[in-house]
Structures are given as C-alpha cells and as structure tokens.
C-alpha cells in the first residue's frame, strides 16, 4: 500500500510523466473532436438522403448511403483503422493524426447517420401533414417543424456517440500513436515507474472526468430542449 502511494507521488511529481499524460490526452481529444465534426457533418447528409422522399435522382445516393452504413457498422473499428493506416494512407510521411481522424470520422458518420435518421423518423407524421395541409413547402416543414422536434430525440443518442468515439480512440495505440491510453502504458512500463496500476488508473480518471463533463452538458441541453413538452403552463 505504501508503495502505491509512493507511485502516486512519483507520477504527479515527475514533470515528464505529467507531460506524457497531457500530450496523450491532447491527442485523444484532437482525434475525437475532429472525427466527431466529420461524423456529424457526413452523418447528417447520409441521414437526410436516407429519409428524403424517394425519387429517381436519389435512388443511387440512397443505395450508396445504405451500403456505406452497412459496411461501416458491420466491420470492427480496429480493422477499419488498420485498413486506413496500412492500405489507404500507407504513404510515407503522411501524418498519422490525419489518418486516425479520417478513420474515426468515417466510422462515426455511419452511427451518427442512424441516430439522426431515427430522430427524424420518430417525429409524428401528423406534424408533417399539418404543414403540408397548410400549403407549406417541404423545406419550411423540415426546418420549422420536423428538425426542432427531431433534435430532442437526437441529442441524447448523439451524446452517447460522442462518448463512444472518445473512448474508442484508445485503439490508436495499436498503430503506435501516443494517445492517453498509450501514455499510461508507456509510463507504466518505464524502468523508473515499473508499475502499471497508477498511470493506468490516472488515465482512467482523465477519460472518466471528460466523459462525466460531456454527459453533464448533454443533460443540460436536453433539459432546455424539453421546454415545450412540459404540460404545465409555459410563458
């Protein structure tokens, strides 16, 4: 036990260790952040193509989107990462962070698309009918009626996806990238520390704290969006 506390003191009093952890954390967050941007952007497009009224213009895009989500969701993330690193971007000197961001972004897009699609489809069709019966355009109906209601259904699941991506980036250590997960392993295996438990628990706390903060923010947003659902009088 004494040894355990000594290791804690050692970890937090050695600037190189703290530096490694922070660098690892920064890389983790960079990959997650940019991957989620790509994921939400691309996922929204895929979802809109998927729920749009069928027409001959959209037949091929719809088909491509369906294939895309099926393939991405049907294969392991780690394998997709390997394919990106060792096949598609196996270019000497190509920055590995970009490869990782693209790999996670393309993966997240498929899941985000499902989340957004589900959110849109869960809006009562009667809401769209009301807009149609008033002679409103499909665009107005989407932006004024369907989207605001869909967002309420989307936010909680999207929060989940954000959390998943942050944690899943840990597998970049498999291709030798120095993320938070890798930093913990690196510190623990060093000759001076020679113990995994403290650095790994510390890394776990970093993940946990980040995800706790995100959960908190998502809950706040959810609550403010539910305003119009309250049965009590609203002013």
């Amino acid at each position, binding site marked *: 036990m004494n040894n355990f506390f000594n290791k804690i003191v050692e970890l937090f009093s050695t600037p190189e260790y703290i530096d490694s952890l922070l660098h690892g954390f920064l890389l983790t967050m960079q990959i997650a952040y940019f991957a989620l941007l790509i994921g939400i952007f691309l996922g929204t497009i895929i979802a809109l193509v998927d729920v749009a009224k069928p027409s001959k213009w959209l037949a091929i895009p719809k088909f491509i989107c369906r294939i895309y989500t099926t393939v991405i969701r049907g294969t392991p993330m780690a394998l997709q990462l390997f394919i990106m690193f060792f096949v598609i971007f196996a270019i000497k000197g190509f920055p590995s962070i970009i490869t990782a961001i693209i790999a996670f972004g393309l993966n997240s897009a498929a899941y985000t698309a499902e989340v957004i699609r589900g959110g849109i489809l869960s809006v009562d069709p009667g809401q769209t009918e009301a807009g149609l019966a008033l*002679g409103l355009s499909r665009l107005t109906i989407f932006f004024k009626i369907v989207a605001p209601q869909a967002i309420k259904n989307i936010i909680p699941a999207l929060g989940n996806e954000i959390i998943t991506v942050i944690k899943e980036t840990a597998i970049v250590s498999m291709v030798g990238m120095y993320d938070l997960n890798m930093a913990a392993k690196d510190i623990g295996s060093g000759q001076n520390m020679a113990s995994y438990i403290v650095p790994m628990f510390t890394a776990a706390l970093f993940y946990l704290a980040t995800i706790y903060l995100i959960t908190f923010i998502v809950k706040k947003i959810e609550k403010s969006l539910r305003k119009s659902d309250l049965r009590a009088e609203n002013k």
Partner: protein
Amino acid sequence: MNGETELIIKNLRKTFGKNKVINGIDFKLEEGERVVILGPSGSGKSTFLRCLNWMEEPTSGEIFFDGQLVTGKNIRKVRQNIGMVFQHFNLINNLTVMENLVLAPIKLKMMKRERAERRTKELLRHIGLSSKANSYPASLSGGQKQRIAIIRAMMLSPEVLLFDEPTSALDPESIGDVLSIIRELADNGMTIMIVTHEISFAKEIASRIVFIDKGKIIEEGSPEQFFSSPKTPRVKEFLDKVL
C-alpha cells in the same frame, strides 16, 4: 348558395399496395355545400377526403379545384385554399399556439407578422382561448387543441374546409365545443366536407349526405331523404345499426 363549383372529382382511385381503397369515385362539390361523408369503418371515407388535397396522392383519376386540374405543381396553392382539420389535431408541438397560427400566413407571405398576430388574437378571443396564446400544445386539452386547429385552418381564409373525424379523439364534453365552432362556420356559409360518426350532428348540419362503402359512393342525397327513406339495402342496414 351562388352555385359556383369548388371541386370536381373524376374516377378517383387510390390503392395502397394491393389494397384497393378508393374504387372510382365521381363527385362534385358546390360552393356553400355542407357535405357529410358517412360509411362503415374501413370504407375509404377518410382516404377519399385525404385524396382531395393530396394528403394521399391519388393513384388515378382527376381532381379539379376552381376549374383547374390539381397536379404536383399547383398542389401547394390548392392546399392554401382547402383547409384541413385532422382527427388528432396535429398542432405543431414545438410551437406555441400563437406560432402555430401565424406560421402559415407569414411563411406564405399572405400577412405581415403584426397583422397575423392581430388576427390570431381575434380568433382566439372568439373561441374563448385568449389566455392560451403563449402555451404549448402539450399543456392543452384535446378539445382546446381541436378548436385551435380549426382556427389555424381558417387563418388562410380557405374556400373549402375538410374535417377528418374531428371529434373522434375527444371526450364527450369537448365534442360539443368543437361541433359548435363547425356549426358556426357552416352558418357563415363556409363550404365544408366532413367525415364523422356523429350521426345527429350530420343530420343537423349536412346539406348533403354521401355514403361510401368499399371505396365507392353507394348513395347520396339530402339528409331528410337519406335518413327517412334510404334507397339501398346497404344504407338501410347501416342506419339500422347506428340510429
């Protein structure tokens, strides 16, 4: 009644997959008429009504509104002139009552916001719901929602109003409130088509009764003639059950 024809329907058919719901309906609606559509459940009466403003796109047949063939191109203009009231009200959940009412007139550039809000306030006062202007639909009762849905349809001053079972989802007390608004619209000369199960209301308000069964008009006529001396055995059987 100055007898201008609002709607002409020619050989209307609607199928859902293999299910033939409307099997060739010819129909005319004159200005000022109050047509009540009766029929057993599953007869296609709601589908018929919903085909008139293309809530359901007809499989075949033609609809003329104000003498113009209704197509995918002019349907939005047509819908602005044919209001619809739904069984489940369909107020927009994320908008307040006020926003529900002013949305279409403003978006369709028929009124400036100020004028639309003034009109909304007048109509809300008229139905006794002024205090609900800033409430969300979730805080209203079914009867309140339906009365607001009716004035929402009226905001665009349509030539025809379609009612799709407007009281079927309401408690008995609210039914009276909703029916009295419909009655008032009828008294003011509004052209109305209504699908309902309220037989006594149908008798009172209708200028013509249309009976639909298996996707066809079986019989139509004035309420007096329809209820006292039905011509077909199918209608006799129906009336025996419901009266």
